[in-house]
């Protein structure tokens, strides 16, 4: 069964950003420029956090919105074809979660590929890989 990254319980999030930092390590680099996952407070840290990451929509609006076909649907989530992408940011606007992140250095979208590396570094069980069921 294919797996997707799921936000299991954002109530346990402590804002350590280890998920976002792990995501950048996929590319053998440090920092946040190419992280496909982000954490934001809900109007101040005392009110808790939201984890902003692709939820692997069955019919992804980001792919539908791309004028040049640079985002295609994959088994789980989508894939970005960077060579096709013209950097217009239409995909960013299409996602209601804000889960299409932007690589400012390369002017390309960054969307989670559901590899699960971030989940293996989440110390508090906020995110996990889960099997994609029938719907």
């Amino acid at each position: 069964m294919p797996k997707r990254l799921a936000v299991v319980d954002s109530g346990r999030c402590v804002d350590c950003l280890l998920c976002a930092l792990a995501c950048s390590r996929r590319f053998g680099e440090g920092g946040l420029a190419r992280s496909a996952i982000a954490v934001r407070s809900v109007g101040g840290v005392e009110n808790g956090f939201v984890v902003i990451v692709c939820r692997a929509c069955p019919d992804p609006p980001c792919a539908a919105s791309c004028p040049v076909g640079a985002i295609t649907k994959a088994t789980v989530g989508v894939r970005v074809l960077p060579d096709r992408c013209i950097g217009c940011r239409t995909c960013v606007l299409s996602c209601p979660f804000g889960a299409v992140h932007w690589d400012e250095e390369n002017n390309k979208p960054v969307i989670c590929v559901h590899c699960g590396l971030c989940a293996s570094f989440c110390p508090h069980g906020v995110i996990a890989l889960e099997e994609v069921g029938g719907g």
Partner: protein
Amino acid sequence: MDRLLARVLRVDLTRKRSWVEERPDLFEKGLGGAGVAIELLHELCPKDADPLGPENPIVLAVGPLNPLFPLASKAVAMFKSPHTGNLGESHCGGRVALALRLAGFGALVIQGRSEVPVYLSIHRGRVNFRDARALWGLSSSLTVGRVLREIEPGAGARTILRIGRAGERLVTYATVVAETYRHFGRLGLGAVFGSKNLKALVISGMGTVPIPDPPRYQKLYRELWERATRSELMRKYHDLGTAQNIRPLHQLGALPVRNLLATRYPAEPRFTGERLAEEFLGRRLACSACPVACIHLAILREPHPQEPYFYKTTFVSYDHEPLYALGSLLGMERAEDVLKLIDAVEVFGMDAITTGVVLAWATEAFLRGLVTERETGGLKPEWGRAEVYLEMIRRIAQREGEFYAVLGRGVRAAAERYGGEEFALHFGGNEMPGYHTGPGALLTYLSGSRHSHLDSAGYALDQEALARGEKLTPAELAQRLFQEEARRQVLSSLVVCFFARGIYDLPTCSAALGTLGVPRSPEELEALGVRILRRKYAFKTREGFRLEELPIPKRALEAPTPAGPVEEGFLREALAELRRLLEGEDGLA
């Protein structure tokens, strides 16, 4: 080494200009954090500078490990302290280190003074000077944070540093509040911000740090992550936070109570880490890059005084030191009352430890008749009376009248003006932290470069010695403290949280640096630690600090520690040895 780390962002508030300097020399030599900040301070702070004058620089620095390794989560601030008159150094977690590093800078230096209140907004590496006149004078530092959160970009990867009213009014122990609930707490960075008409500083950073050896880096990262998340110490900090210390210190008779007139209560106080976790804990938070989440927020639910079923809910961040200073040292009984006092210092932006010690001194001075209601403006301070202390905190932040203006300069100034120096709990002008464990703790407060318990952790040495039934000679104790403080300079140059000192021994620091293309042997790091410590001592000495002339409050010698009372002669002998070690064989660095 990462090329971007060597960039120093310079800001001149007088001329409203900013520029970037490349300083690989400083970062090669001192790595980052404290090692770089002390060199910038030597360079940029003129001798005998007025700490509240435009000539006093604010230096913020991060290091090569931020935020690339677990618990490499701290940033270092250096300045000349308006509180002690010499080295001002303070460390802060939150998102400060991540934001500054990923903004593409290793250090930020702010000099000069703006003629109108401003705040700095730094995004995509550019500095914007923003009008802060409307923010000046707001009653709460929390409101400043709320406003900036809404109007500034960079959510999720930014730090929001600001001062409260105490910083505006130049209370010499005003803090800079970060994010909310984290601080550059001690030695008065908030007053230095205030003196420059600098209300706040927002920095966001989303950049990349290149890793020269990714496979080795990934492997070491995982190893350290596993050690950090599985260690017993880390579990304790996660579960109860630093508040876990209250119970064992109380049992030991090492918790300062009522201005150190006692070291325990008749029964255990109601604000131990255990009781707070059970009855008040509402949320835990972490600094960026730290899996531990030691930040503990209590939920304080207060009924409205007039209207039934109407509640005000406040989140209050508690730690050992505020619980000691605004709790046991003031003889508080109720946990709710302690939380209210902690909330008040957060709102006004004052150092919790110093505020507590100041209030404790004022209470004893009042009870002994050194000051009367004429000085206190009709208030009657009394152990355990939260409502009086809340009003006193407000008046100190306002610098209302002569008495509160003096209290706004700490207990050294208060005792000079009104007497009672034998019970004025300060060491080198900085107020006492919450451990009365024995000679090690007192020596750390006296000799530590920040006069902080964290400088060389004598309290830990005392407790180890006690458990082993070991008695160290003054020279042995001095050597152990010197070694520990020197080693900690390495951590504060990387910059790794001191809570992770058990994980980051020198070989581990060396290995971590190796994966980032900064080859340093453990021996080189050890020597670097000693050099940084001596450079800090040299700055202090330059500004008139004399280790051998430090007064030791009589109260601290009279109040028995678990190891018995401490002899002044013992401390003086150890201080002489520490001075010898700090000066080094070649004289001052």
